């Protein structure tokens, strides 16, 4: 018997992996299939989700953004320092600061033609330093402004606010990708940049836009983390977030070569990663082993989608 025939169609591979994971956990992991655990998974997921949505657009142009984690830290630090002047000032300044980082990434990539991985590696390093400078040389800056804290800790009915924010971002991303000129330009630039340029697509502007968007979404994620912690920890916030975000995008089926994007896939990819993390935690799998298993599951999910770009 040819076991390959049992493999699901590539488009649904990630979804099938997710369903299998959830089903197995529901059966074998005590307390997995409970409402409180569901909300917990989604809450944990919300920040990765925000970064991964931005990352989907960046990767769809054929680029990559390694600076998302550092951008989260920058946004968290700016907000924490400015909270005494009012929550809206703090949030506004954090978003603007992060967007500047994104614009810088985009400008270097689009105009100076430096490779995205190099540019964003530089901002990954610089951003982490900047965040520590802003928060008085890396001090833990605590925040006790109620409105700000609600961003991370509040609920609407049973739904945590971070989950709502992430859902809004996902919905907006789907809309942009399907119905706007920007969405079409992103795919055109990633699919064939020379052809796009000859068709009058503003290639550079599109590239700058995706990096700015990625930075803004990361900033929101950074604010949520700071609000949940009640403090800005410039050295820790968003650490390794770039890897989780890229993993979610890739497992979800967006090709690293660019030209395609599936927000639905990214959501599924992020869910897979989070379900694994949560269930291993609940099953008391040692952290070191859980990393190896996580890697194996990423490889399986990506393997099942091979040939999608044949």
């Amino acid at each position, binding site marked *: 018997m040819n076991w390959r025939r049992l493999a699901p169609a590539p488009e649904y591979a990630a979804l099938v992996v997710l369903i299998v994971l959830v089903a197995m956990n529901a059966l074998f992991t005590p307390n997995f299939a409970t409402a409180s655990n569901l909300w917990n998974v989604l809450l944990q997921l919300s920040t990765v989700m925000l970064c991964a949505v931005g990352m989907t657009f960046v990767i769809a142009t054929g680029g990559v953004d390694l600076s998302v984690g550092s951008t989260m830290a920058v946004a968290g630090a700016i907000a924490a320092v400015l909270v005494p002047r009012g929550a809206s000032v703090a949030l506004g300044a954090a978003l603007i600061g992060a967007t500047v980082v994104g614009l810088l990434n985009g400008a270097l990539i689009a105009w100076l033609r430096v490779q995205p991985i190099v540019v964003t590696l530089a901002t990954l390093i610089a951003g982490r330093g900047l965040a520590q400078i802003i928060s008085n040389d890396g001090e833990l800056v605590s925040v006790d402004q109620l409105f700000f804290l609600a961003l991370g800790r509040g609920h609407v009915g049973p739904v945590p606010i971070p989950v709502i924010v992430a859902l809004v971002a996902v919905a907006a991303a789907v809309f942009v990708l399907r119905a706007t*000129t920007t969405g079409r330009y992103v*795919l*055109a630039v990633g*699919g064939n940049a020379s*052809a796009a*340029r000859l*068709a009058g697509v503003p290639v550079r502007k599109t590239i700058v836009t995706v990096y700015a968007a990625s930075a803004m979404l990361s900033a929101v994620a950074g604010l949520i983390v700071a609000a949940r912690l009640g403090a800005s920890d410039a050295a820790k916030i968003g650490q390794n977030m770039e890897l989780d975000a890229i993993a979610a995008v890739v497992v979800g089926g967006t090709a690293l070569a660019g*030209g395609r994007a599936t927000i639905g896939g990214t959501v599924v990819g992020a869910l897979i990663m989070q379900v694994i993390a949560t269930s291993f935690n609940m099953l008391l799998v040692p952290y070191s082993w859980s990393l190896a298993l996580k890697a194996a599951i990423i490889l399986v999910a990506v393997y099942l989608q091979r040939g999608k770009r044949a």
Partner: protein
Amino acid sequence: MEGITKRFGAATALNRVDFALARGEVHALVGENGAGKSTLVKIMTGAYHRDEGIMSLDGNLVDFATPAEAQAAGVCAVHQEIHLLRLRTVAENIFLGREPRRWRLVDWPRMNAETRALLTGLGLDIDPQATLGSLNTARQQMVAIARGLSIGAKVLVLDEPTSSLSEREVTILHELIGRLKDQGTSIVYISHRFDELYAVCDRVTVLRDGALVATRPIDGLERIDLVCLMLGKSREALREGVTGFAGHRSHAAVASVPLMRAESLAHGTRLRGVSVDVHRGEIVGLAGLLGSGRTEMARAIFGATPRDDGAMQLDGAPFDPTTPHDAIAAGIGFVSEDRAAEGIIPDLSVRENLTLAALPLLARYGIVSRTRQTEIVTRFMERMGIKASSAEQRIRELSGGNQQKVLLARWLAMEPKLLILDEPTRGIDIGAKGEIQRLLNELADDGLGVLMISSELEELVEGSSRVVVLRDGRNVAELRGEAISEQAIIHAMADS
């Protein structure tokens, strides 16, 4: 090389081609795009493996599995782009991979001394310790040649060696070729420049569509005959009446102000001052062999290639596009000759490809109107007879002809004033070809200006109201009305 055949999937790139190179001979290899020159050279130098045929060197059968094997046997290629390390010195490049050693370390003094001896022997005054990147292109090329010789090359393949050289540098290269020839090195010389072929080559082999057309001594071969061989025309019998065009377009009533005028466009060595004007309702043919500057000119008008000099007017007003975006905003569309690399976005659907240029017109506040999009896509798919399972099918799954129709529709949806077409019917089936030609005719009748590059002479003769012929980056002829014939175009292209 005898009976060399190479297939890529279903396509045959070379079909039973014979090629013989004598000792101390400079042998030109010529042909238009797709003739099979590069494939033949790649097989010769071990980059590709042949499917059929035999190869021998000095009377012994050879079979190169890799370029390294070919080099070891004495066959060495010097490519258009130089495949050396720009940041390392001349000596390091020449001895790359086989550095002289002393106590397992690189013996620098010996390497530099041997390099100096080698270069001097070739009559070249180049410092072995200079970094390669600090030399101009011609000298880098000389270094590449010297490297080949130091490996012991008996056969050197020079692929478009002069494409980025100035005239003085070309002379230096040709002097070097002369010396190599005297030393018994054989050279395969690929170039589109006739003057050079006649200046340095002994024999010429012409390929067309993957087949051998002829091998002739170059002395006594008239240029016009060489062009006829390359284009597959006999001098006497020139065909007519085979395209979808209606026959000679009558010379349209010409208004005093042309729709577009380009004067003395210049860029590097490719464009040395070319001019063209296009009136409304006219199809102006742009003819010339590969390398004549026809594509560069089209791209310069569209703002896709920068220009160093020259002026343009559109509707009588100065026009200076620096990006395609500018040209499009002014009402110009451009279809590239390379559909895959510069035309289609392969993973997007027919709908998304077709509306790409027109998106700003279909959107309000950046949101694309689904209704207007569907309306345009339906209209053009019907009008142009685009065959696809639906508008949502990925464009890369379509045939070449249907892809080309989508790309034309991409511009027509913008209602342009001027359409620049580079080889609009290349590589598409006869049926689609005729349909596209008929469509262009109708569009011109409705007042569109068309600038059409084509290497198919019958297409130019039957489709154009005027034909402008370029050679070596300059205008050499402009033919009108009854004066347009394949013969006249060939004469102008060949300079005879």
